[in-house]
């Protein structure tokens, strides 16, 4: 659950963070892609059950409901709120996910490649490390063959293919799929699906902060530029500033 991707965020005047109260939140876009991929795997009979997990305050349940409406079977809400949630980091989430993956005997953990709020891009890698499972990060294609996954990854110069043994952790890139919209009947059905509530303590995970946020500030704003009337003026301006 993150602030909706289309929202223009505001930094708090006391520089402690970003205003989240009364701001539209949604499921992290990369996580929608992860959910969609899991649902497709179930539709192809590659997966028997899908469990969605969210760590956060009470409102995280809405995000879980969205996942349930997309086709997930059941949810686990790891309740973390208040100051503890403010400093919750990928290291904590990955330990929680690893514990749940073991408890639930999952064969595959799919997460988004990054959350669009903290932009960390760490959770999949760290979960894989805690579990000692292989990782397939930034996946744009996943194919299952026997006990393996063949994963096409988006890398800097193009694409790369790797093969990992199950169980594994995969992180979804934007181009993995096009997430479906939950239909009204499915949203209604999702209300009946179970969500189990647990705490980090139940799972034996210590969520004490590893970082201290010193400040959160607005980035420097750019000086407004000018609109040029034609290509000739544009070239003249670029020449003036030494760019051409």
């Amino acid at each position, binding site marked *: 659950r993150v602030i909706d*991707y*289309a929202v223009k*965020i505001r930094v708090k005047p006391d520089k402690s963070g*970003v205003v989240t109260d009364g701001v539209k939140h949604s499921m992290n876009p*990369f996580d929608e892609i992860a959910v969609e991929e899991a649902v497709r795997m179930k539709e192809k009979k590659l997966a028997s059950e899908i469990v969605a997990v969210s760590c956060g305050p009470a409102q995280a349940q809405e995000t879980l409901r969205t996942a349930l409406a997309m086709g997930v079977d059941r949810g686990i809400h790891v309740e973390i709120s208040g100051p503890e949630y403010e400093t919750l980091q*990928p*290291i904590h989430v990955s330990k929680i996910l690893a514990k749940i993956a073991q408890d639930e005997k999952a064969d595959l953990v799919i997460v988004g490649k990054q959350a*669009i*709020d903290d*932009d*960390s*891009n760490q*959770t*999949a*890698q*760290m*979960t*894989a*490390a805690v579990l000692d*499972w*292989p*990782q397939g*990060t*930034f996946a744009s294609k996943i194919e299952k063959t026997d006990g393996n996954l*063949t994963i096409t*990854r988006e*890398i*800097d*110069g*193009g*694409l*790369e*293919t*790797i*093969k*990992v*043994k199950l169980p*594994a952790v995969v992180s979804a890139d*934007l*181009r993995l799929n096009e997430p479906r919209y939950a239909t009204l009947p499915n949203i209604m059905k999702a209300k009946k699906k179970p969500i189990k509530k647990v705490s980090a303590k139940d799972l034996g995970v210590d969520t004490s902060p*590893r*970082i201290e*946020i*010193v*400040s*959160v500030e*607005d*980035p420097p704003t*750019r000086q*407004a*530029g*000018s*609109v*040029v009337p*034609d*290509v*000739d003026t*544009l070239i003249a301006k670029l020449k003036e500033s030494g*760019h*051409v």
Partner: protein
Amino acid sequence: MLLGCGRIIQKSSGQGFKVLSRLQSTLIIAEHNNEKLTPITRHALTAATKLGGEISVLVAGSKCGAVAEEVSKLPGLSKVLVAENAAFNGFLPESLTPLILATQKQFNYTHILAGATAFGKSLLPRVAAKLDVSPISDVIGINGPDTFIRTIYAGNAIQTLKSKDSVKIISVRGTSFEAAPSEGGSGKVEPAPSGEYASSVSEFVGQELSKSDRPELTAAKVIVSGGRGMKSGDNFKLLYSLADKMNAAVGASRAAVDAGFVPNDLQIGQTGKIVAPELYIAVGISGAIQHLAGMKDSKTIVAINKDPEAPIFQVSDYGLVADLFKAVPELTEKL
């Protein structure tokens, strides 16, 4: 209870002594393709020098000779550790992580750094989790050995944070640090700790790299970038001609990639590449938050768009409200 307290005090005073007696030391994980060093490593070196203390570079791969030599010439290095092993074919994090852990065990670095590229982003968090520390991604500034600056919310807020972990694991945003000179040093080359690093759980199958004669996107001085307004992949030829004239790299917005106009590795933005060239020319790009996250640190931004209300004009130094299909060929011709 009392016993417990006594223990805690003992432990913390012990740690205090350790910190005092131990200097900063940084390990940079070199990124390369078994032939050449990736330029981001030189940017990471500049970041490392801001931390103070000794700097070592680890070169791991299936073929390291040429790269190790290149690295040994970088200024200011105390050591170049080389691990040549077939296990590192494809630079899989599953085989590199145990190597880095073994190196860390031997030399006790206070900082481990790499560039925030697909390679660094994939590898460092895995290492961090194994060391039970919280990694810090895509750092744009270093205020001290434990205080770092990074952006959050697609570059719309700047966070300063203090790490409490004993080892700091940091990926560095290349465009925020100058590249260190490629000559002038004479680092001592040594073998890295040896071990059985082959991974039984993952395997590199192959790569499909986009070939291009144009400069590499993240290092280019000029970038010409196209968006949905280009309408088709064929029309990108207009941008290629302009780019060739300016010795520029070509980039794209997510819309252009999703529409299949160009391959994904050209995407600039929050989830694509982050660039900061001298000159960025945005053609047919509206300027969504996610795109701006990848290019708004460019020195000069030019926008060509027929919609005068497009948000890109709020960040552009020079805006041209015009049909790109007329303006771009005219620009190419007149340059």
